[in-house]
């Protein structure tokens, strides 16, 4: 049938359904809905596993991830070395664990940089749509046109390749994303009648941001943080792979992937393990982000 007739159910029907929602809303315990949502459940479990392995690797790994053992170089998976060893005889499983530290560290720190600058700037752009807002948006555009890779090359040239380079490069390049997401969501709240009501009873702009805007956009922002975290893991691996990040002996999924290239013929599995780690980690964070987003959508339907 036509879009005209089937497009949507009218307000009347939604009113009937509102009665339904209200009864369902009594069951608002967040964790219940959390568990019922497969995305957030699977994403949450994966993220927990990655975090657990990173934390564990801080004080324990099966082998020292840096310990060279030429006698057992390029050994396949065995009981001694679960996932085998690399060209220097280092334990792959231990190196994967240690790498998750770097992935999480870089991810957390760059998302932190992006949010600490991006969210306030986004709020400012929303609150002051005039000249100030335009300036913020144009700055965001400029940053947006300056990709993480380029930023990393420039930073690496200036300060040398290191974790800091990666963190700064990724963090800065994600600032405009947060400016835009924050601004567009904040604008919706700022144009709402409850903000108009708050202005009418004398709430000042800053208090409105704190009391109305931030709580209402928090879920969206957190979902976005989780999604960006997944992209960060990918970007970090890419930068390391290109030798713009973590320096050689230290373990990271990107460097492992890079060095395994030379042994593709000898031991293809060496390439598989870090790739798999990256894929699972990225999947985990993006599923979690989707799940949080869906949770928000479910709530906003009330």
């Amino acid at each position, binding site marked *: 049938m036509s879009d005209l007739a089937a497009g949507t159910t009218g307000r009347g029907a939604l009113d009937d359904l509102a009665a339904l929602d209200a009864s369902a809303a009594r069951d608002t315990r967040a964790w219940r809905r959390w568990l019922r949502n497969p995305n957030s459940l699977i994403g949450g479990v994966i993220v927990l596993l990655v975090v657990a392995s990173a934390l564990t690797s801080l004080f324990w790994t099966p082998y020292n991830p840096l310990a060279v053992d030429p006698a057992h170089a390029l050994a396949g998976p065995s009981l001694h070395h679960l996932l085998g060893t690399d060209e220097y005889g280092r334990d792959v499983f231990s190196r994967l664990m240690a790498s998750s530290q770097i992935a999480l560290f870089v991810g957390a720190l760059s998302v932190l940089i992006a949010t600490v600058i991006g969210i306030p700037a986004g709020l400012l752009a929303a609150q002051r749509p005039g000249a100030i807002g335009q300036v913020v948006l144009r700055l965001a555009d400029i940053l947006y046109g300056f990709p993480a890779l380029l930023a990393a090359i420039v930073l690496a040239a200036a300060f040398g390749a290191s974790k800091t380079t990666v963190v700064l490069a990724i963090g800065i390049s994600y600032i405009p994303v947060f400016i835009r997401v924050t601004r567009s969501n904040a604008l919706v709240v700022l144009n709402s*009648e409850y903000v108009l009501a708050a202005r009418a*009873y004398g*709430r000042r702009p800053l208090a409105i941001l704190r009391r109305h805007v931030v709580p209402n956009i928090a879920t969206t922002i957190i979902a976005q943080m989780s999604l960006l975290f997944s992209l960060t893991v990918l970007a970090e691996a890419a930068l390391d792979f290109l030798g713009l990040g973590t320096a050689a002996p230290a373990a990271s999924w990107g460097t492992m992937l890079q060095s395994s290239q030379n042994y593709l013929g000898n031991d293809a599995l060496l390439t598989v393990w870090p790739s798999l780690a990256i894929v699972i980690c990225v999947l985990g964070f993006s599923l979690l982000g989707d799940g949080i987003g869906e949770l928000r959508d479910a709530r906003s339907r*009330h």
Partner: protein
Amino acid sequence: MSGASPTFDLRGVSKIYQTRGRHGPSVTALNDISFTVNEGDSTAIVGESGSGKSTLSRLLLALEAPTSGSVRYRDEVISGRDERQLRDLRRRVQIVFQVPMSSLDPRMKVHDLLAEPLRALKIEVDEGERVRELLQSVEMPTSAANRYAHQFSGGQRQRIAIARALGPSPEVLIADEPVSALDVSVRAQILNLLTGLVCDYHLTLVFISHDMAVVRHLCDSIVVLYRGNLVETGRTEELFASPREDYTKELLAAAPQIRAARVARTRKGREGEPRSA
């Protein structure tokens, strides 16, 4: 009416919105409007979408300034003042909006919704006590304080919005289409509540609506707007008895009315006639 100065006095008020930058096309939301709202009166501002009535409510609240003309509240010009000078107005003039769901922050419990104006205006009261009082004054159970707005029906949400507006003990209540989103039966409840509150708290009511039937029940005088222009003003009885302007007559004639005569109306050639292909 009372001989004292009017509560609101609008003189030659125009509001022009500039769209798309400084040199873009402009929209005249209000064009040279003058009228007064007297203390203790219930004044209706009647108009349909695009009449400028919502712009007018923002001007009365000093949330926006007119492009030209002046808006006075008790002899004081309020248009174009900064927030510090409007402290007093913010307490004395409160507003209730059309769709209660969108005028209540979904993230706040009813307690906070009602306490917010008190906190913002630094009114020294026992918060819990005042919230209970407010809920009682709109005939809601005090247990409502611990729930969220979405857990209530449309009529109940509007009661919450009214309670919030009453919090700072205002002199003037601006109601922007407060019942037009509600079912007819709930509409009557809310109108009865408003009538009672206006009387109990000696409120001056500015009631914005497109529904002449509702206006007739609630208001003493009427201001009719059409596309930003003032069409007609007058006391309610007079205006209903002898509307002068065509638009006012149209508004009156348009309202649906109970008619049992439907069956008697002739609808020629309907029954039994073959459908045309």
